[in-house]
């Protein structure tokens, strides 16, 4: 029977949750790296026992950890993220130029085909790649040196590159998202980039339809249809049917279209999930009810998924990297909350149950489906 391994990053360490394919009984391992912020962990599709973790601390900075046994043991690897060439400036919150400065790794995206190749999205926003299992990192500087970069400004969480999507059908094609610059795409393995924000509208910036400056929270794709992209923007849920060339709103009947994560069902490319959050100044669910919303029509028409989720007095958030889907049948959906709960639905969202309820605040959730 297949198994699942859920990789949970929290404000105070990493946890590895494992179960068989029924996803009813769980073993919990951790905390790994106790006391450190774990922004993200992710396994290599090419070798599921190869895991990468971003470990950071305000005191001690950034560490990258690697496991070759599915998270049982770890070893620190390279943590030198040095911008390539002239550093230049972006805009600070007060509108003044500020030199790029490394703060942390937000997201690690392993290559689908090579276990030693992994991409890192960092704050201040830039994309790095390692081809030696994380020992050394090189910047793909064409992104940070894009002509629009001096005008990028941080969102409240910092100028972070938080999403990396690798097109499984076309090697070298990739998308990234930055808060608050927007989506950028590359067709040449990250050498050159262009903004892909046409159709986005953000009232919080001087020109609501500007080419860059949008606070994109997350983008997602189904691997069978890499030209269809879904987006949770600061406000608005969007989709693109032309590989990011243009976007249209599909918020439909959501109770609020503010939120952070968005993900796609593993077997139904038009079934997507979001977690509506009340507002950008109130980062908790509307009405104190944690509801995952599912659309089986690729947007517009949404249904609330509530069974097994707290429906009163619930004021947690679900952060942008804290939703994942497994590839079992039926598809499993996972969300982690800032209240320390990780919920699983083993039936594509119909019914939910907590795996753990008292972890530190959850930053990220990934899941691996294992033989």
């Amino acid at each position: 029977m297949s198994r699942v391994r859920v990789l949970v990053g929290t404000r105070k360490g990493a946890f590895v949750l494992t179960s068989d394919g029924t996803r009813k009984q769980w073993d919990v391992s951790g905390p790994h790296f106790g006391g450190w912020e774990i922004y993200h962990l992710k396994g290599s599709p090419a070798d599921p026992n190869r895991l990468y973790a971003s470990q950071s601390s305000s005191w001690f900075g950034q560490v990258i950890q690697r496991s070759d046994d599915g998270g049982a043991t770890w070893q620190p690897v390279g943590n030198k993220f040095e911008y390539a060439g002239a550093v230049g400036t972006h805009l600070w919150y007060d509108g003044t130029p500020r030199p790029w400065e490394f703060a942390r790794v937000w997201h690690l995206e392993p290559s689908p085909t090579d276990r030693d190749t992994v991409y890192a999205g960092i704050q201040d926003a830039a994309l790095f790649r390692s081809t030696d299992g994380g020992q050394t990192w090189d910047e793909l500087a064409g992104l940070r040196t894009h002509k629009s970069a001096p005008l990028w400004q941080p969102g409240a969480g910092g100028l972070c590159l938080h999403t990396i999507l690798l097109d499984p059908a076309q090697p070298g094609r990739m998308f990234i998202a930055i808060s608050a610059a927007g989506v950028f795409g590359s067709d040449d393995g990250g050498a050159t980039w262009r903004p892909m924000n046409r159709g986005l509208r953000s009232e919080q910036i001087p020109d609501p339809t500007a080419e860059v400056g949008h606070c994109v929270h997350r983008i997602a794709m189904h691997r069978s249809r890499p030209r269809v992209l879904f987006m949770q923007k600061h406000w608005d849920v969007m989709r693109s049917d032309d590989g990011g060339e243009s976007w249209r709103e599909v918020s439909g009947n959501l109770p609020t279209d503010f939120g952070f994560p968005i993900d796609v069902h593993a077997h139904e490319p038009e079934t997507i999930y979001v977690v509506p959050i009340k507002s950008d100044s109130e980062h908790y669910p509307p009405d104190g009810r944690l509801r995952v919303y599912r659309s089986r029509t690729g947007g517009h028409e949404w249904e609330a998924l509530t069974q097994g989720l707290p429906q009163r007095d619930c004021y947690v958030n679900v952060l942008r990297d804290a939703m994942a889907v497994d590839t079992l049948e039926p598809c499993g959906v996972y969300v982690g909350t800032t209240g320390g709960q990780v919920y699983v639905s083993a039936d594509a969202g119909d019914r939910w149950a907590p795996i753990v309820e008292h972890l530190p605040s959850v930053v990220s959730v990934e899941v691996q489906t294992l033989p």
Partner: protein
Amino acid sequence: MVRVVLPAHLRTLARTGAEVKVDVAAPVTPGAILDALEAEYPMLRGTIRDQVSHKRRAFLRFFACGEDWSHVPADTTLPEPVALGVEPFMIVGAMAGG
């Protein structure tokens, strides 16, 4: 041998006890101690000072012989008891919550 006391999280990262000993050629300075420490324990690179600028991380302090050596130039010669291993060079995390 110079004795270096590490904060708890760095002991875990380096898989050491509270105190490590490193060979440091004279003159013994904060910079030379960190050079030797990072050579012996490469996983500590970047966790005490920036890997490129060598600027001390803001929430760490360096104490020795009852004095704060955090703000002196990295090539400042430390007191002889540190060089002789009588007194440790202490790397201390700031008292800050979270």
